């Protein structure tokens, strides 16, 4: 019983950044902007949060900085994808690689600890609320909220429409660019919060590439969730649960099976996503306009 409770608790902790980043990807892609830069934006958020919290001793200022840093990167992605009509995959990759190098460079120059930020004292980390880390609550609240905004507000309606057929939105007298910029900004902000959680709640400071591929995992969750809020949430929980199980399985001999290789459990989300994409089990249809810049000229 205790084992189960601790497993659930671990799942929740691991799920938080996945949910935040997953919804960032969801919002962006539903608006027609492919975002493989979730990883980089999260990492930027993690670094900013840890650096600012270390300097000011205030975790909330850190969160603010994380949101600002990742938000700016979201806008950079928007500038490439919306204004310049550049390649969205290239831009996302650029952001991931840029942040990976930038965070270490700035970290070393500012803190001289080999790229790490100084370890945070308890006061500079997120407090708990009702026995869980305080950010857990907004992350889980985000799920119904995101669903509600997408399906029950005008903004959500327009956002969904612009990812399917931007010309329909344009001829309805709504600015395609403004909607899409809003989407990339929201994606940036959510990634920032996810990064802050990783660096100043899960861990006590920044270390190299500490997001560890969770941005890509979130992307997989969006695909597996077929770009819909609750299924994406379910995929995030599933992935988090697998992770929690994998850690507990380390070195354990399971009856009948023997020792389960942890690495295989960790690869399950990626394999599942490929299988789904292959169209053998169900069909994952991305928003129709995702990845293509909106060009009005004939």
């Amino acid at each position: 019983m205790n084992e189960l409770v601790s497993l659930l608790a671990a799942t929740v902790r691991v799920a938080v950044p996945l949910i935040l980043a997953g919804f960032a990807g969801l919002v962006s892609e539903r608006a027609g902007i492919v975002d493989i830069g979730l990883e980089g934006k999260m990492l930027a958020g993690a670094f900013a949060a840890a650096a600012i919290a270390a300097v000011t001793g205030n975790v909330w200022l850190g969160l603010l900085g994380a949101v600002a840093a990742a938000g700016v990167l979201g806008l950079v992605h928007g500038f490439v994808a919306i204004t310049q009509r550049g390649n969205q995959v290239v831009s996302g990759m650029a952001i991931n690689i840029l942040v990976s190098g930038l965070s270490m460079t700035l970290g070393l120059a500012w803190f001289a600890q080999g790229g790490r930020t100084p370890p945070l004292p308890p006061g500079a980390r997120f407090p708990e609320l009702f026995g869980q880390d305080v950010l857990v609550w907004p992350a889980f609240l985000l799920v119904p909220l995101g669903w509600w905004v997408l399906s029950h507000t005008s903004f959500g309606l327009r956002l969904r429409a612009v990812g399917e057929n931007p010309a329909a939105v344009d001829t309805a007298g709504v600015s395609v660019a403004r909607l899409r910029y809003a989407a990339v900004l929201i994606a940036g902000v959510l990634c920032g919060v996810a990064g802050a959680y990783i660096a100043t709640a899960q861990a006590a400071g920044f270390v190299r590439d500490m997001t560890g591929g969770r941005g890509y995992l979130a992307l997989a969750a969006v695909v597996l969730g077929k770009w819909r809020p609750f299924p994406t949430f379910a995929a995030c929980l599933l992935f988090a649960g697998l992770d929690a199980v994998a850690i507990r399985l380390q070195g354990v001999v399971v009856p009948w099976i023997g020792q389960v290789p942890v690495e295989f459990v960790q690869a399950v989300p990626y394999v599942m996503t490929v299988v789904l994409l292959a169209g053998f089990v169900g069909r994952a249809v991305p928003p129709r306009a995702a990845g293509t810049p909106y060009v009005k000229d004939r």
Partner: protein
Amino acid sequence: MSGGAAPLPWWIDYALLPLANLALALLVAGLLVLATGQSPLTAVAAMAQGAFGSGEAVGYTLYYATDMIFAGLAVAVAFHGGLFNIGVEGQAYISGLGVALVCLYLDALPVWLVAPLAVAAAALFGAGWAAVPAWLQARRGSHIVITTIMFNFIAYALMEWLIVNVLIKRGQMAPETRGFNGGGLLPGLDRFLPLAPTPLNPAFAVALACLLLVWLLIWHTRWGYALRVVGASPRAAVYAGIRPARLVIQAMLLSGALGGGIAFNEVMGAQHKLLIGFTGGYGFTGIAVALMGRNHPFGVLLAAVLFGALYQGGAELAFDMPSMSSDLVVAVQGLVILFTGGLGLMLRPAFVRAFGRS
């Protein structure tokens, strides 16, 4: 985009514009160095010294450039077919397995026999790892960007398990295989040429040969022509009686095989054993190299040497200026991808205004 399509003299599109984009990326990198409180000029001088200042430095630069050439070619070949292969990293990683198996089991044989086998294994394993995403793209329409990302992570997991649980040298903690012996050791180029001892090895020659072969293949064969048609317009390919699906699969197999060159250079040429994470992100650097080199082998060569110099110079920079990190190079790489790739045409309207014939 009125300036987007207007004609310009070729030297603007193929020389001035890429250089201006590169300059922009380096300018931002300079500002970044300034932000760390250092002088960008001192940093540049230190890097240039570190990359080209001695025979040893040049050797290291070319050793890194070898990886960049393979990675850049892998990305470029796929690009010509309209495919974005983000999976070079994973393909190269799996290739390492092929190289290691050959070297571990056959290192009793002479090296001149083992080396070609290792090259073949690298190509085969890389192509094999690219085959599934290729097939899924060609036959099932699954987006290759997502599938190759997923395959990178599957490769990480598989290789970690193999190295930690299966191939690890008994009685040791470090996750790596035993060192290769005799025929599994690719000698450094310094054994044949009057060079300083560095990890630079015959894989560099293989990389140069690949540059030439890819150039021939893409621009002087019927297959390369067909591939470029598919990349430029799948509809025109159908019109011309070319089967896009077949070309897509073939191009991805070739791309994966080229990525395998990284494993040959690293595993057999430099490390002499298989260790976790030996690909070091070079597969991703290939994106920057290909974009900067405009997917042309000659451009890839120039870009690869530049990035090789950045890597080597960056390592030296970290040595000379303790507050500078060699990760600066990674940031520069990201900036280069951003400015020459995502924002590649941003400056073009300005050039059209300045040079365009109206």
